[in-house]
């Protein structure tokens, strides 16, 4: 306020003086106090403005709706990755102790699983350091071993930068644990290069989803208004020029200053307009298949009778969709009254229901010195249902079956196509089952038995907890997406084979859909059944049920009540295919919970892990250990690497077990033989995993 009044008062005084000089009332010689006065005032103002100039410029930030929203990578945070191994809980430890403690347990876990040691021998190995070739790693976990002398350079940096040697030890130890944990996954001579980068792991500030606003927007809503500070300083520079001109008696310099003053006036003349615009989106397809490219055509119309000199527009591409390469959902333009402009971009369809966010529009006045920010609503939605294309190979099921006929070959003898055994003739055996060859040879009557073929009753259970929104790269397909896609394909395969399939999920019920139909969402449940209608329902649920949302839910939710609800609805002869990435303790708890209640569970596990950083490596080892433990407990686990299709993963399991999945599951009817068969199959899985890993 003071500055303003001061400037105006001084300006008026200067004006009066100028008039006085011009009218010869006052006659001041040049170089006298008037010029000095002007110069000093100009300089003071210049200094004042220049000191406040820093950070005075502002512009609205735009989000990046073009790329898909990002999910974390397993083991992004080192302490969390380490904590997965720790049995003892408690945050009393200092972080460094926690890491050391966790790594020690990780080493023991890996050694007992993958090298067949008992916990006590593993402990001894760690104590004497013989578990690894890396002397630093050995010394890090054992208090009795002295680490080898570090190179001079490292010792010097250690003086100045704390933690250098600690970090190095952590990296090396994690790599050594990983070397044990990946047994056979990678060639041993690449060991040194596998020491990953140390990232303490800052949990990234995740961008808000949706990008613009969560509330529904109708028409044009102003969100912010600001001065851009585009011209700040020009008046000051102009005044300086004028005062220099006055000192130097140079009319050229004074004239140069006048130009600056003209621009300064221009800067304050206008105000950013509030646009009266409408947008209209046209999609080339509203119900595409996943992977299809949809052309989005956006038409912006200026409905007012005023010119919009500066309009910057960022469309609200749904967070689950990505704009294809070299495309952009942005436009900068000027719009005359009633004029419209159209721009296009292409998005790749992904599964799910995607609602366009309100678009973001910025307007500026002609001089660009003020900016307003608006949200422009226009509801457009894309629903993309997964394709229920059957998998080329059969689904590895377990030997539990319902009472209806189907394709699952059971261990029981009866009618069927595959030979099972011969038994004595009993009265009322059908004539076509009598072994007439034997009757001709020996005169005895015997009855042929075939493997009974029955339908399996399967529940496809998707573990869609918040913790499972994980991917090897931030914007790659995450584990839940892959699980849901696989669920659709597994169901298609089983339905085609005449089995009955149901669908359920564990995961938060997303309340994000507030802006749309605000009804209470229920946990997903579709009882095992078959038929066209059922198939359509299945497909629709996978596409639209909020539990299968492709966007990470805002909150996690307790899983036990959900599981109990499923348990109450499930008949005991149903077998479960659980789709989970196995990246946290809870996932294996869920498997154990179901297993303990007598369900035949098969785990299909999309692998979201990677090994870029130390934390990533540890997360991968932890997942392998979980997988190993489940297999040891008799639950078959299908490991599904990120670079393979589900067909390949199943084909590997089916080929790895040496026999077709159906006969593999007929290997024995008692629990003992059954689990042995599974163990056999899973050990093959490990072998296959080795070859798969070596190529990576």
């Amino acid at each position: 306020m003071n500055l303003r009044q001061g400037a105006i008062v001084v300006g008026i005084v200067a004006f009066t003086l100028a008039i006085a000089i011009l009218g010869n009332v006052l006659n001041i010689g040049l170089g006298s106090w008037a010029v000095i006065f002007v110069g000093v005032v100009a300089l003071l103002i210049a200094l004042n403005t220049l000191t406040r100039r820093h950070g005075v410029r502002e512009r609205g930030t735009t989000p990046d709706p073009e790329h898909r929203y990002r999910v974390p990578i397993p083991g992004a945070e080192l302490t969390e990755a380490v904590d997965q191994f720790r049995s003892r809980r408690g945050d009393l430890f200092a972080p460094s102790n926690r890491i050391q403690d966790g790594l020690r347990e990780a080493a023991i876990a890996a050694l007992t699983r993958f090298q067949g040691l008992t916990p006590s021998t593993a402990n001894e190995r760690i104590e004497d350091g013989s578990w690894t070739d890396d002397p630093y790693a050995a010394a890090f976990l054992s208090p009795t071993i002295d680490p080898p002398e570090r190179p001079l350079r490292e010792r010097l940096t250690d003086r100045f930068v704390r933690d250098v040697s600690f970090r190095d030890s952590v990296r090396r130890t994690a790599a050594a644990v990983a070397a044990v944990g990946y047994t056979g996954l990678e060639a041993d001579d690449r060991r040194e290069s596998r020491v990953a980068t140390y990232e303490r792991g800052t949990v990234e500030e995740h961008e808000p989803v949706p990008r613009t606003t969560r509330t529904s927007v109708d028409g044009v809503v102003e969100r912010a208004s600001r001065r851009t500070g585009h011209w700040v300083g020009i008046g000051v520079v102009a005044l300086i020029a004028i005062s220099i001109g006055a000192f130097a008696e140079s009319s050229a310099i004074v004239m140069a200053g006048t130009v600056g003053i003209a621009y300064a006036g221009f800067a304050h003349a206008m105000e950013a307009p509030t646009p009266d615009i409408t947008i209209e989106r046209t999609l080339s397809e509203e119900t595409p298949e996943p992977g299809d490219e949809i052309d989005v055509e956006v038409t912006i119309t200026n409905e007012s009778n005023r010119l919009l000199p500066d309009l910057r527009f960022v469309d609200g591409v749904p967070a689950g969709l990505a704009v294809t390469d070299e495309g952009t959902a942005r436009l900068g333009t000027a719009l005359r009254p009633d004029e419209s402009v159209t721009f296009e971009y292409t998005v790749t369809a992904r599964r799910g229901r995607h609602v366009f966010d309100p678009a973001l529009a910025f307007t500026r006045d002609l001089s660009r010195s003020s900016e307003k920010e608006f949200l422009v609503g226009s509801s457009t939605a894309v629903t993309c249902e997964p394709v229920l294309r059957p998998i080329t190979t059969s689904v590895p099921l377990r030997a539990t079956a319902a009472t209806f006929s189907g394709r699952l070959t059971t261990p029981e003898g009866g009618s069927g196509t595959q030979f099972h055994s011969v038994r004595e003739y009993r009265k009322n055996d059908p004539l076509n089952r009598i072994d007439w060859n034997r009757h001709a040879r020996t005169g005895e009557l015997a009855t042929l038995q075939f493997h009974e073929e029955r339908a399996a009753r399967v529940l496809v259970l998707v573990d869609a907890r918040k913790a499972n929104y994980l991917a090897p790269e931030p914007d790659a397909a995450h584990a839940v997406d892959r699980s849901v896609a696989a669920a659709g394909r597994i169901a298609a395969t089983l339905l085609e084979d005449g089995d009955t399939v149901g669908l359920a999920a564990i995961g938060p019920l997303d309340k994000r859909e507030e802006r749309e139909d605000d009804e209470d969402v229920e946990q997903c449940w579709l009882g095992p059944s078959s038929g066209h209608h059922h198939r359509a329902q299945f497909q629709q649920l996978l596409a639209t049920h909020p539990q299968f949302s492709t966007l990470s839910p805002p909150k996690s939710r307790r899983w036990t009540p959900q599981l109990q609800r499923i348990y109450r609805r499930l008949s005991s002869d149903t077998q479960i295919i659980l789709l989970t990435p196995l990246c946290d303790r809870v996932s294996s708890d869920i498997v154990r919970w179901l297993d303990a209640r007598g369900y035949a569970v098969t785990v299909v596990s999309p692998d979201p892990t990677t090994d870029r950083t130390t934390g990533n490596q540890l997360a991968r080892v932890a997942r392998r250990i979980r997988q190993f433990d489940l297999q040891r407990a008799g639950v078959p686990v299908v490991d599904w690497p990120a670079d393979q299709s589900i067909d390949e993963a199943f084909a590997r399991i089916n080929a790895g077990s040496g026999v077709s999945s159906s006969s593999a599951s007929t290997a024995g009817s008692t629990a003992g033989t059954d689990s042995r068969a599974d163990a056999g199959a899973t050990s093959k899985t490990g072998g296959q995993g080795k070859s798969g890993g070596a190529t990576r």
Partner: protein
Amino acid sequence: MTTDELTRRPALISSAVAAAGAILAVVASGYASLPGLALAVAGASFLALGLARGTNSAIDVACLLLFAGVLASGYEGDSVELALLGTVGTVVAWDLGQSAIDLGEQLGREARTTRLEAVHAASSAIVGLGAITIGYTLYVFAADGQPVAAVALLLAAAGLITIGFGVRNRRSREPRRGGSRYS
């Protein structure tokens, strides 16, 4: 990161217009004086740097140097016409340079912005031409034979009053939201 990242770099057309403005300033200041040429060339290279890097402060420095060049040449050559042209060139370079960075940050290079940039360039140039016309008219008719001090005082008065009202404008704004500040 990935390939679908936006290229948040200064918009091309605005950058080109800014460069043209800078060249005009260099020519106008280099015509009459050698120090003016040196200053202006230094300014132009700073501008190139600022546009390549997308840094606002480099553009500020560049245009101050350009303007210093114009002033130096005005002092030595005392050609009002060249000084006016040079100043307009400098201001256009400053204006469009910053606009290019803002546009690059907000919309990226991939977006279609031709029309917007054309409007920017035109508005900036038209204001410049208007300023030249008024300034030159003032010089030729009104200020001819008048003491420079009076003219300077008049202009200072106009400038101060403009700034005074500008300050009020800025102060009366509601609190800023959602924008990023930068210097």
